[in-house]
């Protein structure tokens, strides 16, 4: 079976939360329930007070772009077909530095807005944009009030990444509907999620 290359989707269990955050359209980062420190990448203890109790909180999407690079040489075939890949370091008000894909228009030393998005593998990644509008950039989905469309060359593999993330994040009543794309619905308390994953060639209905 020949498959199209996807972005690397291996993640720790904690980091899979970013996939759920992308589907929910929220910018969630890990926060210490003892001292309130926000941290990234997700870890097993608070870097400030070493507290073990960490939850996920909505944090301010605004940050300052500190540095950028455009990658011309990647070791992953998916990115090799998409060079240059422009990424940057963004400083958040919480004092956390995050690495993010940059949408066009991001300028160093100026403000950007962060959001988690699904990449073509169905994994959550951080994307920095400029302004209020979510700019769809190649290879990434947009979210729309709880419903999420992901177009990817490998819908089955992306669906597996998303299902793994939902299970780890304790979402229940997970159901998948094959057919015109793969529709995933899931529920966690009051929250429900709907994701449609399809090949770009599949017609929209």
């Amino acid at each position, binding site marked *: 079976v020949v498959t199209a290359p996807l972005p690397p989707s291996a993640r720790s269990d904690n980091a899979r939360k970013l996939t759920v955050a992308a589907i929910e359209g929220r910018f969630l980062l890990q926060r210490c329930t003892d001292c309130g420190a926000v941290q990234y990448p997700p870890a097993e203890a608070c870097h400030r007070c070493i507290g073990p109790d960490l939850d996920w909180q909505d944090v301010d999407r605004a940050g300052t772009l500190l540095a950028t690079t455009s990658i011309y040489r990647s070791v992953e075939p998916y990115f090799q077909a998409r060079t240059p890949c422009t990424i940057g370091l963004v400083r958040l008000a919480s004092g956390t530095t995050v*690495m993010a894909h940059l949408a066009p228009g991001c300028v160093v030393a100026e403000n950007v807005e962060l959001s988690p998005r699904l990449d073509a593998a169905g994994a959550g990644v951080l994307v920095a944009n400029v302004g209020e509008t979510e700019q769809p950039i190649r290879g990434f989905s947009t979210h729309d009030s709880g419903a999420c469309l992901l177009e990817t060359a490998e819908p089955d593999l992306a669906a597996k990444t998303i299902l793994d993330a939902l299970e780890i994040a304790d979402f229940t009543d997970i159901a998948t509907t094959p057919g015109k794309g793969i529709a995933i619905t899931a529920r966690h308390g009051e929250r429900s999620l709907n994701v449609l994953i399809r090949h770009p060639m599949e017609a929209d209905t």
Partner: protein
Amino acid sequence: MLHRDDDRISEDISATGPDPVSANTCRPYDDIVVAVPVSIPYERFSAHPAQWWLARALRALVDRSGFPKADIDGLAISSFTMGFDPAIALTQHFGLSPRWFEAIPLGGASGVIALRRAARAVQSGDANIVACIAGGTNDPTVFRRVLGQFSRASQDAVYPYGSGGANASFALITDHYMRRYGARREDFGKLCVAQRANAMLYPHALMKAPLTLDEYLAARMIATPIGLFDCVMPCAGAEAFLVMRAETARAAGLPAARLLGAIERHNGFPDDPVQERLGIAMDAKTLWAMAGTTPAAIDFVQTYDDYPVISMLQFEALGLCAPGEGPEFVRHHDFTIGGSLPHNTSGGQLSVGQADAGGGTLGLVEAIRQLTGEALGGQVEGARLGLVSGFGMITYDRGLSTAAALLASDRW
């Protein structure tokens, strides 16, 4: 050779970190020496596993020192490419029964830190002769796996962002440093070009062609602002040396360099938004105080040059110039063998190659050769004092491990 009256190298290290720790908590190394510098010539790719390269280094240490294998009672190993073998498996593999063992998975800081650990072990009598060996193998599939699984933070929060590897991470650090401190590509190029000139004299350098500044500037971009000649070439190979007491070396007739001081610092300055200071800046005063000298006295410096910006940060952290003055410092010095500050005198990793974790020992082995008059390439005339520093382990957005040592010849 560096002239002591050269006003461009600081005798004032007040710009570096806090006051030195007291002599009570950081004892001198007394008569600990390093000897028997070994470099197993590098190959771009190798079908041999890391263990084969490390074994060759150990064999060379035994052959060249004349010590029976059983006399080597301490072993320190640094390698990322041993597969699923834990480092301790090498003792059985090599038929050694050491009474002291360290695995030091600290990449570019591993050479100096192995020396630091081994020196204290010998000083305290826990070992008499410690073999410090670093290196490994290189094939493209191994390299990709090491990149993707280097750390959890890298897997989760770096590798999915373009998978540019270390090039991309250091491109971000370089981009920030250029904007903040006015470094130009020409400044980084000057370091790379000087190292290549040094490498032309060193027989084991993988890079055999001269490099001009124009060629450096015209090279294709790898991850802006980093171009081809800012990047090391991963390869297979090994570096090694022995740590012992001065009297042990003398009795065996081995030329040796004395350890005057050594420091290490991990995760220094964690609140800097982008890495622009290295942890050893917190300890530089301690280093110079242990050696009882100042930066103006050094005859050469060997930095960990995975990218030229990191060499500049090491100059600053160790007090050769003030923080942020790296670019100006580079513009005022000649870093070739006969220059005002010989730097990475074998060519460094940028020209010799990066043999896995051996890259963190290349400069230390070269420093021993320079101080014992055994240079394989260009010899810094009358070198008496050398500074060696290490840097490594970028598990998320910055290198965590830093270390430095001062070594002296018997004429010091």
